[in-house]
Every structure is written in structure tokens, then in C-alpha cells.
């Protein structure tokens, strides 16, 4: 087992201190930043897989995700210097009139774990704010969340704003308990994730292959 494998393991265990220590150690040892990053992402992938196989809980994923964040913070300057960017840039938020966090937060966590750069706009987000943020950050993907059936129309309105704004490189995906594939199609969303766990694969498929 290499030192980088140990780093991966520390992420999987959610052992924040050890993960940070090993990251610093690898940096000091002069390992390639992209290799250290790969070890971190691999850890989150393993946790994500365990989660999908119902061998891990969200709280465990969260701990792993925090360990990754702190390790990543150390690595960040080196990645910038090396011109290595996050795989994708994503904007997330819950649409206007809707205050539900949890689903949106889980998606943000999954995306961060996959090394996306995530801008979280919070809840009750007006449609314009989504468009602005997407433009400002040159987002690859925007995730709209809604839990209330009464705020589903706000989703539709937001997607219309995106069509008007003409940001052809930004895919808009939606999710939330009342959302169906049919609704996504109806309002012209680029994609739909039935749950947080499938949100990563969705983006990789939609944007990654484009």
C-alpha cells in the first residue's frame, strides 16, 4: 500500500486529521498535485460506491467529504499553480418560494466529493440569481431543487430565464421529491436526477461527454 493509498483510506474512514496530515506529507514529499488530488477523489468515489450499495450512511459520507475539503484546501494553491481545475463548475440552489435545504445540500456534497467546483446559492433563490451566478462562474451545470409542488412552476420559470439568457454551455438539471422525468422534459430541463446519489453520474454524462 502506497502513501497515497493511505490517504485514500483516510478519506474513506472520514479521518480528517490523518487525511490532512497525509496530504501535507505528500505535498512536502513533492508528489504531483494531480496525483494527490486523484487519491482524494478516489476516496470519495469509494465512499459514494459504498453509499450506493447501502454500506455507508450520509453522515459517513459527510465526514469523508469534510476530510476531503480540508485536504483539498491545502492542495488548492498547488493545483492553481499547476493549472489544474476542478472537473466541472456547478451552481446549486432551491428555487424561489421553497426553503428546503437537505436535498440540495446532499447534491452539493456529492458534487464536491467528485471534485466539482460548487457554488451553493442557498434556498428561495430567484430565477435571475441562478442565471447571474451561472454566467459569472461560467457554470457547466446548474442544479435546481424543489420540494413543494407549488414551487415547481418556479422551476419552469427559471429554465425559461436560462433559455432567454442563451448560455449554451450551461446544462440545467432538476431534482426534488415531486419531480418526474416527464416534468423535466415538459419544462425543457437538460436532465433530471431522482436522488442525490445519481446527480454525479448525471452531470458526467450530460457535460462530460459534450
Amino acid at each position: 500500500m502506497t502513501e497515497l493509498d493511505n490517504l485514500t483510506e483516510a478519506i474513506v474512514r472520514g479521518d480528517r486529521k490523518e487525511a490532512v496530515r497525509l496530504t501535507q506529507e505528500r505535498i512536502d514529499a513533492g508528489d504531483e498535485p494531480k496525483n494527490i488530488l486523484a487519491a482524494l477523489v478516489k476516496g470519495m468515489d469509494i465512499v459514494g460506491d459504498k453509499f450506493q450499495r447501502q454500506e455507508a450512511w450520509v453522515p459517513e459520507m459527510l465526514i469523508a467529504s469534510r476530510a476531503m475539503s480540508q485536504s483539498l484546501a491545502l492542495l488548492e494553491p498547488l493545483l492553481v499553480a499547476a493549472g489544474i481545475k476542478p472537473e466541472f463548475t456547478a451552481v446549486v440552489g432551491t428555487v424561489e418560494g421553497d426553503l428546503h435545504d437537505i436535498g440540495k445540500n446532499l447534491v452539493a456534497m456529492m458534487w464536491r466529493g467528485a471534485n466539482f467546483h460548487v457554488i451553493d446559492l442557498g434556498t428561495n433563490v430567484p430565477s435571475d440569481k441562478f442565471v447571474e451566478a451561472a454566467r459569472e462562474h461560467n457554470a457547466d451545470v446548474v442544479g435546481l431543487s424543489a420540494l413543494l409542488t407549488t414551487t415547481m412552476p418556479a422551476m419552469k420559470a427559471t429554465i425559461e430565464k436560462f433559455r432567454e439568457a442563451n448560455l449554451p454551455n450551461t446544462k440545467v438539471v432538476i431534482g426534488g421529491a415531486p419531480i418526474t422525468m416527464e416534468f423535466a422534459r415538459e419544462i425543457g430541463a437538460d436532465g433530471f436526477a431522482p436522488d442525490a446519489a445519481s446527480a454525479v453520474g448525471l452531470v458526467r454524462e450530460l457535460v462530460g461527454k459534450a
Partner: protein
Amino acid sequence: MTSFRTLAIENPTQLLFGVSPRPVTTRSGMRIGGGLVYPELNFTLPTMLVTEQTMPEVLRHYTEIVTEATRRAAELEAPGLLLEFEALPPMTENPDWGMDVVHVLLDGIEKGESKYGLKAALRVTPNDTREMIRPPRMRSGALYENMLALFERSAAAGADLLSIESVGGKEVHDEALVSGDLELAIFGLCVMGVRDMRFLWTEITGIARRHGVHPAGDTACGFANTAMVMAEQRLIPRVFAAVIRAVSAVRSLVAYECGAVGPGKDCGYENVFLKAITGCPMAMEGKTASCAHLSPVGNVSAAMADTWSNESVQNVKLLGGMAPICSLETLIYDCRLMNEAIADGPEAARTLRDWMVRSDARFDPQALILTPASAVRVARAIVVAPNPYRAGIAAAREAIAILSDAAAQGACKISDREAVWFDRMTDTLDDLPSDEDAFIERTMAQVDRSTFVAEDYLLAERANA
């Protein structure tokens, strides 16, 4: 403020559907908890915007629902019908709109009474719109004022029951659920939640008193039901959700301490503990609320129900008719069955109750924690504790004891990857100070204070400490 130091129902055998020591009588003469289980119908709009422009259509929907519901209830000779109007946020933000709906429903109830002799009553549940801004202002501001206005005007118009799904403490509790953090959950429920409910329910019971209507009860929907839904999606362990349920009773109890009389809100499964403590009748929901959410407690939740609800269904067409009427049909038959059992005496009713309990309790810790035996144990732990914080700890410890005993005896299916959480939660509890002040001090130093306004929870000094 009443402080419940003993149980209204000491003996699990006395915890039974349709019967409670303190029945609530509606103006139409329904005696809730007085020996009959009544259907409580919930309904909401199909997917549509609520705006000035759409209000005529909104009212058409509610008119249709109340007209058809009273008619079908009369056709099936229901002994009574409770309707719950759970407002949609724009209707609470604009109380004029909310009141338009209230009037439509009260009119419909009156027509049902004069046309068919049907006994019916209305529960009005404004939204807790205070959280529409972040961090929420809990005791002032336009959102707060409009919410109270809808309470006040609904009571004045003659709504029988006032309820709310209040959210004070949710600012930190969502985080507690996602991170499986029992300490933070206790802070959200038993410190923040309790403080907010003391304030809010003093207001609500005051309004109810002024207008001679019933302050009914609250629910830990945003807390414990969120946990249940997450557990159902296998995001968090079911044992953790079950413990959260027990702890949530400490928060929902505050409504009764402030003068609420029941029936507690349908989605508050913690009502089983509250019934044991307060003796007030309780609304419950289970298998016939599958239109609103799936759950592991479909039958056991009926074991102590005084009204039986479908939680929520959109006014959309199913093959059998509009969805609320389809729901009502099933609710009425469910109630008929329970009422037949009651008619054969308490022993018979208990037989049915015990089947409901056994049906679910061995499959899921969240069902096990709602059984009459568990309810009395958790309820007792709560009332003997010196304060809400300690009650929260006691409820959690009692829940863990109930669940881990059952797991050990094979009485409830709890997997190994769930069972490890017993120790994990116990360690958390062991690590907590016994003094509430010390706990607040310590937790306030750790939580993300940007998510709530400390002074709205009378925590400002701690925040500055």
C-alpha cells in the same frame, strides 16, 4: 404554563384509538377522543402557482373539494368529518387569500350540515413562513405578523382547530440529521425548538381563547418526519430516526404546556408520547397517507389515533374520482373498522390495536418506538426530567434502551450497521453535561451562528459569551 410532571395515561393498555381522557368537542358536536375515530381529510392544490390571478381557480378547487367531501362523507354516513386546511405559503403571506379559502371551506361545511346533517369541523394550519428569510426572524417582522393574522382571522371566522408545523430550531436540526449528530439535534429540538414554541404557542392559545376555538397542536414534521423520510431513503439509520422521534416529543409537548388541547397534528407521530403525557386526543396518519409519503409505520400509527388522516393529496383526477375524495373513502372505511372494534368494548379494541402494533413493530425501529409500551416508557422519561434539555436526553436514552433491547431479543429487525449506532449515540449522550446552561454554553460555541438569530431564542447572551 402547565408543567406535565405525571402521565395522564400510565398504563399502555389504556392507550387506544378513539379514546382519550380529555376529549375535544367541536361546535358541530363531534367529540374527538370520545369513543369514535373520525376521518381527517387533507388536500392541496394540483401543481399550480398561487397568485392574485389564479386565486379564482384556487377557490374553485377548494370549493369542489369541500362540496364533494361533505357529500361523500354523508353518503357513507360518517359520524363526523374533520377537514384540515393546511395553507400554502402564499396564502399565509397574504392572509386575505388564506381567508378566502377558509371562508370557502366553512361555507361548504355549513352547507354539508344543513343539506345532509353531517357533523364537520375545520382545522386551519397556517404555514410557519417565518423561515422564508434566512436567518429567520422568529418573533417579529411582516412574515410573522401575517402568519399570526391568518391565525387570528381564521379563529374569528369560526375555524374549530388551530395548528401549525412550527420550525424553530430547524436552522440547526437539518444539519444534525445530515451529520447524524444527536447532540445538535437535542439543541435544535429541546433548546431552540422549545424556546420558540413557548413563545409561539402562547400567542396561538391566546388567539384561540379570545375567539373561543381550540388550539389543537403542533408537529415535529420538519424534524422527525424529515428524519423518517431520510431513513426510508436509506440516507440515515432508522435507529437514529427513531431516537429523533422520541426526542422530538419534548418540543411538540410545549404546545400543550401552553394550553393546546388536541387533536395534535396528523403528521406528528410523536403524538403517541403526547397522548400518554397529556391525555389529549391526537390525529395520526399511516397507511392511508401513502398518497403523501411512504413510511414504515402504516398500521402502528393507527393504534392510538383519535382522528385518522391522509396527510395531503393534490386535487387531481384518479380513475375513482378526485384524489381527495378517494382518500376520504378509504379513511372512512378505516375509521368504520376501528369504531366497530370500539363498539365491542375496550378489550376488543385492544385486540385490533395489538394487531396494528405487531404488524409493524418487528420490522422497523421507527415502528417499535411508537408502540403503546414504548410510548409510555418514553413519555415517563420525559415527564420526570427536570427540564426540556434533560427530557431530551432521557427520551433518547429510553428510546435507545427500548430499541437495543428489542434488537438483542430479536424482537425487531435491526441490522449490524444500524446497531453500531446505539453505542455511538450513547457515547454522545454520556459526553453531555447534565446542566442545561453548560450544554447551551458549549453548543453555542460550536454551532454555525449565522443560521439563526440568537436573541429570538433568548440565547443572545450565550451568543456573546
